[in-house]
């Protein structure tokens, strides 16, 4: 009867908790409580079962050979270890998560590049009191007055004044 087989990888719950975003916190809490319950159940079971005192039973039981037979069969018994069906599924999930995470990181980097570009534009622009209207239209294209659509002053709908 073997004891602990697979060595458990220590999970640092504190660091894990830090990385959880706020909208996934309930799921994280559920996972933690489940894991704690499972771990508590494990620690409540002793590792080896109670040893059977064969000599006492041999002396006590009158039936001839019964205890011996029990003892022989007991010692010969191999308890099968439970089959692990989930680890492969988990590994598949992990691979998929890695893929989607890589995609997300790519998209995030693209977003960062775009933000940095705009930030540079703001950092490098000339100060407002040295700008002319043309400079303003170049830096912020949305301020350009459409003189074709609204040919008469003020070149924008009255409502937007």
């Amino acid at each position, binding site marked *: 009867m073997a004891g602990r*087989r697979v060595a458990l990888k220590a999970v640092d719950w504190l660091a894990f908790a830090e990385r959880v975003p706020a909208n996934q916190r309930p799921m994280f809490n559920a996972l933690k409580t489940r894991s704690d319950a499972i771990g508590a159940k494990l620690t409540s079971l002793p590792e080896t079962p109670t040893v059977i005192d064969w000599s006492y039973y041999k002396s006590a039981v009158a*039936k001839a050979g019964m205890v011996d037979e029990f003892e022989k069969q007991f010692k010969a018994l191999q308890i099968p270890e439970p089959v692990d069906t989930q680890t492969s599924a988990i590994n598949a999930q992990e691979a998929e998560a890695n893929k989607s995470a890589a995609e997300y990181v790519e998209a995030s980097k693209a977003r960062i590049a775009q933000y940095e570009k705009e930030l540079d534009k703001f950092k490098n622009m000339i100060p407002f009191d040295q700008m002319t209207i043309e400079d303003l239209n170049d830096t912020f294209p949305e301020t350009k007055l459409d003189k074709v659509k609204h040919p008469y002053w003020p070149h924008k709908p009255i409502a937007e004044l």
Partner: protein
Amino acid sequence: MLSRLVLVSASSLKGSGPLGAGLVQASRSLQTSSQSLAPVPPLPEKGGKVRHGIFPEELFQLLYPKTGVTGPYMLGTGLLLYMLSKEIYVINHETFAALSVGSVIVYGVKKFGPDVAAFADKLNEEKVAKAQEVKDLAVTSLAQAIDDEKKEQWRVEGRSMLFDAKRNNVAVLLETNYRERLHMVTHEVKRRLDYQIALQHLHTRMEQEHMVNWVEKSVIGSLTAEQEKASIAKCISDLTVLSKSQAHATA
């Protein structure tokens, strides 16, 4: 030269405000037409220095080496007297109109000029402040967005922990199951052996009780009539002896 004169006339208004922008447009259009792409230097804060509101300081500086401090004044006086005496400038009613209107204008500008300039400056300041606010907001929000994205990337790196936790759970469940099986086996075997022992004890106890009952019954059955009579006679004789000894004791 033309732009210089325009600057001079605007110098009594101390702010450079909207007028200044128009001036720079004039000078800017000159620059754009010559196709130079260097950014235009910022506007000067004040217009060129003038004396008595009209005459540029450069004239006085120009004449200072040759004629000293009073030179330009002498030049001015001489020119004025020449024009009056030679009737190049004729004094007529237009002169007085010009003098009156001019003095009113000068008085008005001197009195209300600074206020008007401040008001115009304030308008411009508000526009610039609004634009600056927009810019600052944009910069802070962009920086914040970049930080948030970096944070999200850091969070994503922790995804392996989730799967470690899941695998741990699976392993622990398997281990628990295995232990439960072990315990169940030993428990069941022990139960059966204990049952056998209990059964044996029950047998011996029942045999004992049965035997005791049987012995009692047989003893009582074997008590014959004459044995009973003999035992009763014995009891009576014992009692008489006892009573005699009691009577002797009390007497």
